[in-house]
């Protein structure tokens, strides 16, 4: 049900129920593409990507009865726009088992936009080993790629303009769950 949260919050494009459904579908897609859960590692990009990776792992555990190793991959130190803004405090990285050698890594993030975050994540990943394959799962793809990068699993394709702002809220990080879009030309 689309709803207006409060003035300035923008239009809701995914409700909490939508997010739950979308994650269920992505989890199934991941399993289908990988023909099961073997060798899978889910790595979320902080901060909300980590929550999404944990949620996907929980769904996979329910479906397959296997616990998929889940971790976090911080990309702060690998960004290509470090000089354009004040420094940020890096977030924890945790690689289950300490290496991604020969694993199938699924990177998980909330919003795919320019693709630069994913580029940085691929660089960071290379410092932890050589995965057999790397896939990308995102909750929202809002377009406007600046690099030749695409997602393997997308929750929702959301055509946007540059001036619009997409906000993802997830329990565990925010007080409710939604994806909203605000700003831009009416």
């Amino acid at each position: 049900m689309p709803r207006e949260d409060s003035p300035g919050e923008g239009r809701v494009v995914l409700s909490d129920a939508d997010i739950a459904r979308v994650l269920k579908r992505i989890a199934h897609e991941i399993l289908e593409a990988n023909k099961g859960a073997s060798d899978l590692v889910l790595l979320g990009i902080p901060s909300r990507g980590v929550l999404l990776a944990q949620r996907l792992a929980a769904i996979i555990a329910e479906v397959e009865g296997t616990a998929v190793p889940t971790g976090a991959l911080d990309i702060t130190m690998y960004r290509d726009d470090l000089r354009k803004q004040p420094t940020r405090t890096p977030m924890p990285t945790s690689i289950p088992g300490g290496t991604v050698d020969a694993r199938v890594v699924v990177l998980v993030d909330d919003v795919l936009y320019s693709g630069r975050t994913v580029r940085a994540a691929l660089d960071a990943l290379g410092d932890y080993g050589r995965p057999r394959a790397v896939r990308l799962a995102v909750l929202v793809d809002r377009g406007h790629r600046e690099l030749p990068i695409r997602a393997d699993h997308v929750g929702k394709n959301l055509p946007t303009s540059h001036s619009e702002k997409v906000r993802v809220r997830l329990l565990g990080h925010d007080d409710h769950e939604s994806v909203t879009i605000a700003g831009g030309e009416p």
Partner: protein
Amino acid sequence: MSDSTASATATMPRHLLSIADLDADLIRTLLDTATQMQDVQRREVKKIPTLRGRTVINLFFEDSTRTRSSFEIAGKWMSADTINITGKGSSTSKGESLRDTVMTIDAMGVDALVMRHSASGAAHQVAGWVDAHVINAGDGTHEHPTQALLDAYTMEQRIGGLAGKHVVIVGDLTHSRVFRSNVLSLRMLGADVTVVAPVTLMPSGIRAWSEADGFALSNDLDLILTGDRGVDALMMLRVQKERMSGGYFPTAREYTVGYGLTRPRLQRLVADHPKVVICHPGPMNRGLEISADAADAAQSLILDQVAAGVAVRMSVLYHLLAGAEGGAA
């Protein structure tokens, strides 16, 4: 992720000359970042691209093992080019002034000068002459800010947050830049601090300072170690023979008896406070201010301090060099 999160930190100063340039929030940022940097230290591939293309010069006019090498390793692991210049091998030994030396290096277009000098205030003065970021790696008897940061980091790793903890600093206060920086940072982090030294090794004016900054003074180590307040961390300072022209205490033996962490003192301390931690900024005079038993005790954090030195200096280099110039977005 470009849409969400991204909370910018408070503005880091352009130079790190003194702990007084920071506040509790900035120290927190530096220590939190150091935690993540220590992950790099534990990785197989100890290299991140963050400072690619930057040049860091270590300009050391005084001897150093751990500070200089840890700044060098920190820079290299972050992909900066790091170069060491020592006073002895540089043109200052031919009579060039400090100003000409640093202006010469600065003219080559370096990004950071990590400087140690025997004159208090040297780093501060140099910061006014150069375009590079200046990091004080020890200036005379004034300050050694990255040492205080790594001390705080190491203690926190073992005993948790420092707020309300009792840290006792013992030794040559007059000549110790480590003590000066540590008192400032520990107070900012909310620790209770007691400093202990013989009267002859207490700098003039310390009473007024201790009242202003809220730390305690004592001349009696045993009284403090057995006191009701307890001890969470004990920091032994090095007796700086090279800065003393004699007369501060009658004999080394007498200093050890009064203020050294001897084996009997250690045994009693550990019996009273099993969770106490022992720090020493190094290099140690074993048998003078710290016994071998204490230096190698399970409570000793001395090697953890060295390991933390690299992570903390990576954090400092990152926050000073990696972001937008002038801290603006």
